[in-house]
């Protein structure tokens, strides 16, 4: 979790470089943090570095998280949180991925030869 402040700085530098408003930072920070903490919590294996990438494609920003040596763990397959259920009946966990789904246009996972890649597309303009 010590990496989170570095991720926040990375997002600010990207927004600045792309001329995108700072107000977009909240949602980008949230999606990146939730994906990152999910990987750290659930993916097992010979843990290495997680590479986080941001790319601008027209009105979208593409977020990629790549980790070599990770075991298969597909966050897109996680059951969604039923936010309409009373709190006492909810199963703990899963809220982070629920927020990623809420804030993204597209959410994909690919695992090939131990390289796990999560790709999320977020729309930056209304």
């Amino acid at each position: 979790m010590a990496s989170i402040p570095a991720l926040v700085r990375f997002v600010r530098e990207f927004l600045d470089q792309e001329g995108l408003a700072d107000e977009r930072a909240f949602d980008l920070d949230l999606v990146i943090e939730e994906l990152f903490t999910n990987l750290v919590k659930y993916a097992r294996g010979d843990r290495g570095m997680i590479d986080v990438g941001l790319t601008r494609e027209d009105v979208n920003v593409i977020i990629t998280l790549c980790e070599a040596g990770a075991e298969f763990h597909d966050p897109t397959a996680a059951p969604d949180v039923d936010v309409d259920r009373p709190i006492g009946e909810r199963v703990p966990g899963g809220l982070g991925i629920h927020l990623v789904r809420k804030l993204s246009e597209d959410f994909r996972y690919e695992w090939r030869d131990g390289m796990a890649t999560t790709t999320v597309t977020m729309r930056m303009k209304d």
Partner: protein
Amino acid sequence: MFEIHVDTPGIATLSGRLDAAESDQALAVLSSQPGPLVLDCAQLEYISSAGIAVIMQTYKRLLAGGHSLRMTRLTPRVKNVFVYAGLAELLGIE
């Protein structure tokens, strides 16, 4: 940067970014509060599911003791996260 203060009994003031790196600090303070408790979020700039988990853990503990937890003065973006999580009504967020 995240800070949490309880200057007035029953009112915790949160400021900065409550993310996964800061959630332990928030829990350490909140777990010592007897309740009822109001969280003043006027200066809270950011929250993730790790921060929400700490607030929900505190909510459930207080509820079990017959106390309430309420959140006030949230910024629109922080409020949105609670709305997406389906927790806004439960925590008295207007």
